[in-house]
């Protein structure tokens, strides 16, 4: 039954590409602070700037638009730090946005899980925020948000738009920077790079107030010795991703949902009616707790995700699903299966097999 463990929690963190591991390891072997004037420093600086050019190239921006950060959360908070007045955020944002600005105006989403543009237009006109933040794709459902349309509404009130593209970056045909945002957050470990490195991509000419002042690193926009091994790993991971065709992954995801629905007719794929990332499937089985599903699958060697776990390991009901109008009980019955570039048919089969066994036991117990 068990066999090799199957990893289907790519949205939490993706396996690091061998190329990224090699690049990071090579950088770790070299000494040198990019800020130093000596030859070691110059070489380090050259490697950092090469990584910056690679990241910028992948996202279609100029190198000086790239501000390296410790990851997506820091990039988000650096963007929020630019606000000069009220902030509005989508109700389904990541905790690194919602908890950083708890007082922010919440923009509702439709039952399908995408930003309600009509409500957003109304609320923006009413509250006149200086900054609006929205994900490019949701991390729990994969639903792609109407960011280009939102950008027009934001521009109309003279505000700035921040886009959290941590989950979407590298998985969509168009660059997250091409949608009219002023700042875009990206993170390496979601797309095959190491954890601990990300970037805020900044529109040309937009001054950035540092949240972490100090040394003049990153053009004075983010103090601290740069994570050079991370940056080169980030660049290497993006290079692997360049030109990758996600349609096969989307097809696997669709097959997975089709087969589970054939077994459990009451199972719903959340947000399946709107465009989604090819990699995420949010599966809701009314009455079957996510905790039970996670544990049963894990015991059979299949790793999936659900909601957000606090440090005690207990799962809070997803604020994303609650914002979509689902009840707390429904939100507690949803798991997130997330796939990646190397996910295989056999791995999907393992998930389907383990889940089916759980589902049958559960049905049998409830029938008893």
């Amino acid at each position, binding site marked *: 039954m068990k066999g090799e463990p199957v990893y289907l929690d790519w949205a939490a963190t993706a396996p690091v590409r061998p190329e990224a591991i090699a690049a990071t390891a090579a950088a770790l072997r070299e000494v040198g602070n990019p800020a130093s004037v000596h030859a070691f420093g110059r070489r380090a600086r050259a490697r950092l700037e090469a990584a910056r050019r690679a990241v910028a190239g992948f996202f279609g921006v100029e190198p000086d638009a790239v501000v390296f950060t410790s990851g997506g959360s820091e990039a988000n908070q650096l963007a929020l730090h630019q606000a000069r007045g009220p902030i509005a955020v989508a109700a389904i944002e990541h905790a690194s946005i919602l908890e950083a600005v708890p007082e922010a105006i919440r923009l509702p989403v439709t039952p399908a899980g995408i930003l309600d543009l009509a409500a957003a237009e109304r609320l923006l006109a009413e509250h006149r925020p200086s900054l609006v933040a929205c994900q490019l794709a949701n991390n729990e459902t994969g639903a792609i948000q109407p960011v280009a349309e939102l950008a027009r509404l934001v521009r109309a009130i003279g505000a700035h738009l921040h886009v959290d593209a941590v989950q979407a970056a590298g998985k969509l045909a168009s660059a997250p920077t091409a949608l009219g945002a002023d700042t875009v957050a990206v993170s390496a470990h979601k797309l095959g790079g190491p954890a601990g490195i990300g970037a805020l991509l900044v529109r040309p000419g937009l001054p950035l107030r540092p949240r972490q002042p100090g040394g003049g690193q990153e053009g004075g926009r983010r103090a601290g010795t740069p994570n050079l091994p991370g940056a080169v790993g980030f660049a290497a991971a993006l290079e692997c991703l360049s030109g990758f065709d996600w349609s096969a992954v989307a097809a696997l995801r669709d097959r997975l949902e089709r087969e589970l629905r054939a077994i459990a007719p009451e199972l719903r794929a959340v947000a399946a009616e709107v465009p989604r990332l090819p990699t995420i499937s949010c599966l809701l089985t009314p009455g079957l707790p996510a*905790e*039970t599903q996670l*544990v049963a699958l894990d015991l059979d060697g299949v790793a999936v995700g659900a909601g957000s776990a606090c440090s*005690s*390991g*207990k799962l809070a009901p997803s604020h994303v699903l609650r914002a979509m109008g689902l009840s707390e009980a429904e939100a507690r019955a949803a798991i997130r299966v997330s796939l990646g570039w190397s996910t295989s048919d056999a791995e999907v089969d393992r998930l389907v097999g383990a889940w089916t*066994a759980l589902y049958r036991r559960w049905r049998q117990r409830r029938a008893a």
Partner: protein
Amino acid sequence: MAETAPIDFDLPAGARVVVAMSGGVDSSVTAAMLAEAGFEVVGVTLQLYDQRASRRDGKTCCAGRDLEDARAVADRLGIAHYTLDMEARFRAAVIEEFAAAYAAGRTPIPCVRCNERVKFADLLAFARDLGAAALATGHYVRRLRGPAGFELHRAADPHRDQSYFLFATTPEQLDFLRFPIGELDKPAVRAIAARLGLPVAEKPDSQDICFVPDGDHARLVGALRPDALRPGEIVDGTGRVLGRHAGIARFTVGQRKGLGVAVGEPLYVTAIDATRARIVVGPRRANLVAAARLEGCSWLAAPHPEEVVAVKHRYNEPAVTGRVAREPDGRARVAFLEPQAGVAPGQACVVWRGTRLLGGGWIAATEPVRDAAAARLDGVLAAP
């Protein structure tokens, strides 16, 4: 009680077993014994209430030290471990009723409800959904095969026996449950923990009520049911006011200390009148009851009406003797062979035949000795 005695776990070889791991030494050793015997042990710690308030080390996570201990033990044993969030369930099924009982003048025993409604209900269902063959807990009780199925017996160590708290167990639950440490005494349990290097080998025993770690149950009850802390009068059996009190939740029937009233002889709480927020006190003889009326009864095996059985009407009192007359609608009347003091409504009244747990019920009312005597006298007078 030697730990070398072979134990029949009554499980197929290599079966998956869920172990309820509280982080204490008893459930840790339960998990260890099953893991050593080659079963696929899945440790589960229930997150029952927010422990932030009770942590003294300044950390602010909702999880307490016990969860960290359970994880450390699971890591040491190399078994899977998960946390199940049952805060909402525990609050609804245990804590709210606990407070409501005090507000109604009763003395609740929440551990029974937790076993009945949380551990042996929700956790047991979880274990079944995982395809486990059994749920094991660190209770000091024994599950023994009898002629008509499994029986629940007192622990081998009478000082540790916890069968009182499991009186509401059903036969279906008992089929699925395992209590490996019920054959051991505490030193043997600690010896196993020490031999395996479990980080909880020297951990002190837990307190009586897990969600009231400081022992101040009145504060918790007052937060949920302020009416239970309404000040009122302390009266004697004739209604004469002897003093004042700061809330009925601070009292239990049979209590002597903390009354703050002094007359010639020692006084005991004989009744709690929630409606009028009154504590009724009387001398020891007024506290004596001849029988208890039970409701919500649960029987693993039925006592015979004429049979003299062992009875415990309070968790921290020794067993006494009595006879049980079962009545319709889950009720029963327990007649004590000797008059009993401190029989408090809300407590569990539990019945054994020898070491075998038969079942029990919740004390709804009591029959004072004087009333019972009067009833007998009435019967004599009414006789032709």
